[in-house]
Structures are given as structure tokens and as C-alpha cells.
């Protein structure tokens, strides 16, 4: 009997290499060497959208769609969306913009409420916050009709679509576009990236969502984790080039990969 299950050796090696890189950079960060993150243009877009809302005297929506946090593939974009929400709520409090944050899951609701409350407190504007109206719990399914209706009745001037997005991406963004809202969209669910890119005025693609979250949260762990992930990207790039060359010259690598 082999030590590792047949066909999973390469996966295990890749996992060890990438996890090792992430842990290395995290260790470096705790000893004071924090990787520098590039400022994404989306940071300025957040303020631009909120500024527009203030000028027009109309509110903005911050939507995260799927926030079921016991699913690892949903947790990652949701955590990034919370980090961006923290910055967005602080900007909204500072500029005096009204935001609505509907959430469709209990645990995420408590976190979103806490994030928004902390943001208003940090800006010394807690008296301007009506928490139950700002962070709303909506049952999954009923949220579609409520949000569409609310977008029209309040004439949203801005909207953020960040997190793990599924079919609702096209429903909400299309309505927001018709209302005339300026939009920032970003998700890592590959099949919905095209909708957000196509309809939103500004978009961040895939992993940029994590980078934006890490940049705005100013968290050393997040920044170092991103640096470790970059090592994984370089390895992937190298393997793609190597694999293309080997396949082109006729060397079969499938048996090697299925070790």
C-alpha cells in the first residue's frame, strides 16, 4: 500500500510548497517585514461612488450575495467583502452617505452589523447610524424582490457588488444599471465575473477581491498571505510553460502528473 493515495502526490507537493510559502511570509511579517501591497484603483472608486451618492442625496447599496460562511469557497470572498465593507462604511460615515447592507444569513448579519457599527464609531458618527435599517436581514429568496423594489423606490445612486456572487449578480446589477447607479463589482465565482465586468462601471476580477480586502484592512497576516499565494502563482506559471513545451515536443506528462 502506498503512503500517499494514487494520483495525489503532485497535489500534495504543491500544497506543501504553497502552504510553506504562506507560512514563511507570515513569519516574516510578524518579525516586521510586511510585504507592500499595490494600491488598487478600486479604492478611489469606493469614495467616488459614495461621493456621488452624497451629491445626489441618494443612498448606496452594499451587497454580498452568498454569505454562507461554512463553505470555504464562500468564506474567502465573504471575508474580503467584510473588510471592504469596513472601509466603505467608514467612508460613508465620514462623507455622510446613506448605505444599505442587506444580508441573507444569520452569522454574516451579526458580523456585518458589527462592522458597520464599528465604522461609524471610529468616525465619531454613531449618532447618524440607524443600524436595523442600515444592515438588514432578508431571507434568502425573498431578498431579490425586496432589493429590486428598494433600489427603485430609493433611486440608488451607487451600488457595490462584492463577495461570492451567483445568479443574483445579473438581476441586481441590471436593475442598478437601470436605476442609474454607479457600480463597483467584484467576485471570484468565475461564471459570474463576466456579468459584473460587463454591467458594472468598475470591476475587480477574481483574486483582486482578496487583494482589495487585504489592502483596505491593513492587516499584516492578509498581506503576507497574499505574498505566499504569489509564490503559488509563479509556480503555476512555470509549470504551464514547462508543460506546454513538453507537450509540444511530444513528451507525455500525464503519467507523471497522475503519480
Amino acid at each position, binding site marked *: 500500500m502506498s503512503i500517499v493515495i494514487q494520483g495525489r502526490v503532485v497535489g500534495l507537493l504543491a500544497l506543501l510548497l504553497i502552504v510553506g510559502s504562506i507560512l514563511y511570509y507570515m513569519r516574516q511579517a510578524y518579525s516586521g517585514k510586511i510585504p507592500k501591497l499595490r494600491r488598487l484603483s478600486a479604492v478611489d472608486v469606493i469614495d467616488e461612488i459614495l461621493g456621488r451618492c452624497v451629491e445626489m442625496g441618494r443612498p448606496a447599496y452594499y451587497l454580498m450575495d452568498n454569505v454562507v460562511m461554512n463553505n470555504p469557497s464562500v468564506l474567502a470572498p465573504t471575508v474580503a467583502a467584510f473588510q471592504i465593507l469596513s472601509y466603505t462604511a467608514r467612508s460613508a460615515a465620514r462623507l455622510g452617505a446613506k448605505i444599505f447592507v442587506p444580508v441573507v444569513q444569520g452569522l454574516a448579519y451579526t458580523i456585518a452589523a458589527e462592522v458597520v457599527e464599528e465604522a461609524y464609531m471610529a468616525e465619531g458618527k454613531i449618532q447618524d447610524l440607524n443600524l436595523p435599517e442600515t444592515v438588514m436581514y432578508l431571507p434568502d429568496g425573498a431578498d431579490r424582490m425586496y432589493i429590486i423594489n428598494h433600489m427603485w423606490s430609493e433611486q440608488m445612486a451607487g451600488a457595490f457588488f462584492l463577495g461570492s456572487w451567483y445568479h443574483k449578480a445579473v438581476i441586481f446589477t441590471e436593475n442598478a444599471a437601470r436605476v442609474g447607479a454607479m457600480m463597483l463589482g467584484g467576485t471570484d465565482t468565475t461564471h459570474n465575473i463576466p*456579468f459584473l465586468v460587463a454591467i458594472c462601471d468598475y470591476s475587480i476580477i477574481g483574486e483582486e477581491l482578496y487583494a482589495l480586502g487585504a489592502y483596505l484592512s491593513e492587516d499584516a497576516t492578509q498581506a503576507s498571505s497574499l505574498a505566499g499565494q504569489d509564490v503559488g502563482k509563479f509556480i503555476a506559471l512555470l509549470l504551464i510553460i514547462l508543460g506546454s513545451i513538453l507537450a509540444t515536443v511530444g513528451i507525455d506528462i500525464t503519467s507523471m502528473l497522475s503519480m
Partner: protein
Amino acid sequence: MQIPIIITSVAGILMILEYFFPMPDAVTGFNVTLRSFVAIISAAALILGTVVLSIFHVRKVGERKSEWMYSIVYVVSFVATALLGLGSVRNEIFLWIYSNMTSPIGAALYSLTAFYITSAAYRVFRARNWSAGVLLVCSFIVLLMLIPIGAILLPPVVPIGSWLRNYPSGAGFRGMIIGTSLGVMGLGVRVFAGRQKEHLGIREEKVGEQ
């Protein structure tokens, strides 16, 4: 506060070990039980959401806020369905409500997507510039390939459309998948190391650490 983090790390590492290494039946069985816990714990989160929503609507009715009459619909529907469901989920009326009201409403709402996709396509597929023009041509070829009459009217769309989907589009998607998968791995490391606690409902203000 260390106990939930330790439980998360041990459970997560066990799942990873089970994927890569042959494990004794006891460990595999334990992992199966752990996975069944996920459904139960997720259901518990619903209770909090339901309580928050009910409080909101009851208050709205009490304070006669705008559109308060719709909140009555919620309260009545919620109480009736909950009472019937708590009695028995096999209750005929409860099943009728689910089959003839909840399920069709859900399907109708989901079907809205088709109409919005159409209007979104109209918004996007306009040759405003060179790159939008490329998008328009490619999407037209793929759409023709996917509809039965397309291949009859214009047979070359089938190989061209397949090539577009398998190579340029496939390569782009794989790049995104690699990026997001690495992101999930990074999250896993942070969760196991106890540096990311949002999944436990804990959020620490980290501003200024950097």
C-alpha cells in the same frame, strides 16, 4: 477562545489528511460524522436570522411605518407555516404551502434571471470600441453554435465556437481559478493558524497592525 480555533484546525487538518493519505476506518467514519455536523450547525444560524427578521416586521407593524401592511403578511405567513411545520413536516397543509406557494414563487423569481441576462446582453454586446466589437463577434459565434439552427445555417460556427470556448475562454477561466484557489488555500492557512476568525463570528479590528 482557543478551543473553537483548535477544533477548527483539527477538523480541517483531518479532512486534508483523509484526502491525501489512506486512513483507518475510524478516522474516515469520524470525518463523515463531522461533515454531517455542517448541515446541523448551518440550520442553527437560521434561527438567529428568523428572530431578527420577525422583530423587524413586528416593530414595523407596531410603529405603523410605511408599507406596514406587508409586514402583516410576513407575520401571518411565518406564524402559520412555523406552527404547521413544528407540528409535522409531513402535514398535508404544510406540504401544500411548500409545493404550491414557496416552490413556485422561488422558481418564478429564479426565472427572472433569463430576462435580465437578455437585457444585460443587449447592454454589453454593442460594438462601442474595438474590444467590445471582438466580444460581440465571439459571443455571436458561440450563441449560434449553441442553438440547433445555428449549425444548420452556418456550419463553420461549430468548430470556431468550440475553439473559442476551449482555448481563449478556457485559458482565461483557468487563470482565474488558479488565483481563487490560491486565495482559498491562504484563507485555510490563516484559519488553521487562528489568524482569521470570521467563520466563528469573531471579528478583530486589525487597523494599524501593518
